[in-house]
């Protein structure tokens, strides 16, 4: 008798797709002649990500047929629910766009190797797995897969000292943090006798022992590092500055989203009473440090790095709210942030040109005249990062603060957090605005005009821009999915009244009721 059933393979279908394509790319690479461009492999891996997305849709369809798919599979290793589905759609999409921009970038940097794409695909496997894994062993391995692949990719421009330095920094500090996370896992295993999130959640209950609390703390440290939340954010600016732009686009969104997913799973296995003040402080610190740090930056990548710290802070505000609205807001925010940030880095990676020469803000002077498309899309992304209405950024922030202000266990503290957040976003508008200002209101300083963007890059830009606007104007579907995800994740059922704007009781929620 074979204990593994077909449905189990459906549960990991996207991962399988990605892995398969990854291997194909890996095998195909030596077949191409050394000096040649690896565009073809890029397209292949693009197909891989699309296949993964398609696979996820298969999962949705399957869920409609029988809800048992959402039971934990592989002996309680993975669980397919609207939460995991959300990230299985989001993360491959991110990778897809990053691959699109890499097609141009690699040629510009004169990097000719297919492993790059394979690594992106394998990394994606890790990330998506993080979102669906419910067993700490698997979570750990998935985490390592995504981390190690990004370590390598960060150092991919081997000739550049900056790139290798960012790789080593990311690697050492990353493994350092991983050790903390592991120690936490060990303790939780000691405290509960299990490493399955579901069992842990069940056995901890409302009043876990000190050991479990310490374990949670250690895991928060490890994951807080991965999501670049203060005070574990210090690595971010250096690593982002050194790493290749498309990879920054990836690692500032994909692994981050995945890590947030894990953080959600882990945190909401215990009651919020213990970690609320902690997350509160982290949120406030991240927003403030991030925004104020960014004020004085002249390097665009570094500036965006600080901004990503700040955005992690906004996300943590939603955590602090620690109610279903908060969870869904956080889930939605990951998507919103991904859309705009990937877009921004797409522009950066195109504009940086060979050897990433042009990354200082002043280099962007007069871009409005030289390449209107680039300037226009970048403007959209900046406005979204500021949080101007009708963009993803605004809706993300709006949901977050809605969560913070809606009735909860700690109303006053959350009101203050909201105020801090809003003031921060006002401060932030200054440095995002700087970029718009130089693009449209200053005359060019760089002698050579930026090279025209290739079709793929244009596609990447336009897709990101569309996503940003879409999430800002008609986020209904995404919002529903995030709400459903929150619903599936949260230990308690959700009173429909408390659902955030745009909630309709649609498919995914239906699943969970079916269970």
């Amino acid at each position, binding site marked *: 008798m074979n204990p593994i059933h077909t449905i189990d393979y459906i549960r990991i279908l996207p991962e399988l797709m990605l*892995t398969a394509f990854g291997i194909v790319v890996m095998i195909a690479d030596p077949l191409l002649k050394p000096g040649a461009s690896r565009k073809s492999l890029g397209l292949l891996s693009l197909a891989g990500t699309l296949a993964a997305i398609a696979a996820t849709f298969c999962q949705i369809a399957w869920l409609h047929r029988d809800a048992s798919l959402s039971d934990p599979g*592989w*002996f309680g290793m993975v669980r397919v629910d609207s939460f995991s589905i959300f990230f299985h759609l989001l993360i491959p999409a991110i990778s897809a766009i990053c691959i699109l921009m890499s097609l141009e970038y690699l040629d510009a940097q004169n990097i000719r190797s297919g492993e790059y794409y394979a690594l992106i695909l394998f990394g994606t496997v890790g990330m998506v797995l993080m979102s669906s894994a419910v067993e700490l062993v698997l979570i750990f*391995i998935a985490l390592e*897969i995504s981390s*190690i692949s990004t370590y390598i990719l960060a150092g991919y421009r081997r000739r550049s000292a900056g790139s290798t330095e960012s790789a080593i920094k990311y690697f050492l500090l990353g493994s350092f943090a991983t050790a903390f996370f592991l120690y936490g896992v060990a303790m939780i295993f000691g405290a509960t006798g299990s490493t399955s999130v579901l069992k842990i959640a069940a056995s901890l209950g409302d009043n876990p022992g000190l050991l479990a609390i310490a374990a949670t703390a250690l895991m928060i440290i490890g994951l807080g590092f991965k999501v670049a939340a203060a005070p574990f954010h210090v690595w971010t600016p250096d690593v982002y500055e050194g790493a290749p732009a498309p990879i920054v686009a990836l690692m500032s969104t994909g692994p981050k989203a995945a890590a947030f997913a894990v953080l959600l799973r882990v945190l909401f296995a215990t009651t919020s009473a213990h970690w609320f003040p902690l997350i509160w402080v982290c949120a406030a610190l991240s927003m403030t440090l991030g925004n104020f740090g960014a004020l004085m930056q002249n390097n665009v990548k570094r500036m965006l790095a600080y901004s990503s710290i700040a955005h992690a802070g906004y996300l943590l505000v939603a955590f602090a709210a620690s109610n279903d609205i908060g969870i869904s807001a956080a889930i939605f925010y990951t998507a919103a942030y991904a859309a705009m940030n990937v877009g921004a880095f797409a522009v950066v990676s195109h504009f940086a040109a060979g050897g990433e020469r042009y990354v200082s803000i002043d280099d962007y002077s007069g871009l409005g005249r030289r390449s209107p498309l680039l300037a226009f899309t970048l403007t959209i992304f900046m406005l979204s990062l500021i949080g101007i209405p009708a963009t993803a950024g605004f809706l993300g922030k709006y949901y977050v603060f809605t969560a913070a202000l809606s009735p909860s266990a700690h109303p006053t503290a959350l009101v203050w957090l909201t105020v801090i957040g809003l003031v921060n976003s006002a401060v932030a508008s200054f440095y995002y605005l700087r970029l718009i200002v130089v693009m449209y209101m200053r005359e060019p300083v760089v002698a050579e005009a930026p090279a025209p963007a290739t079709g793929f890059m244009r596609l990447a830009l336009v897709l990101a821009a569309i996503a940003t606007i879409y999430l800002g104007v008609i986020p209904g579907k995404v919002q529903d999915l995030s709400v459903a995800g929150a619903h599936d994740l949260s230990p308690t059922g959700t009173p429909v009244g408390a659902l955030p704007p745009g909630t309709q009781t649609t498919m995914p929620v239906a699943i969970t009721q079916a269970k």
Partner: protein
Amino acid sequence: MLHQVLFIVFGLICVAGAINLLVQRHPISSALSLVVVMASLALIYLLLGAEFVAAIQLIVYAGAIMVLFVFVIMLLNAGAEERSRGSRVALFLGVPGVIVLAGTVAWLLITGSGHLGSVTIGASDFGETHAIARLLFRDFLLPFEVTSVLILIAIMGAVVLGKKEN
């Protein structure tokens, strides 16, 4: 009784090795002291009745990983490290921080020791390899398979980063 003696002995060797890893200035000596730590840890695993773990501890860690380390040290013929003062933060913030951290954990474990109880020399059926094998290839099949991806990445990474520029 014997158990305690053995634990204390090997435990002390562990700590000594670890400390030596810190104080030694040449990477090779640090590496060797790390090997010492791992070996003694293997023995402690045996005390805990984890034969399989003890075995792979020696084979994988001491055998494979540390050899890799030594190999790299040789390759880059790293000399004795100079005591550069790159980071005052590490000294004045980090060290106290670690002490607090360790202190908290230790205190927690000591106070908790009461209900944590004690450990025994492993029963015969515990920790033996085929039991682990059952677990590994059935319940933990998926992680096991996924590890292959991990290793694939590692290989690729090593190749990509290691190979000479052309």
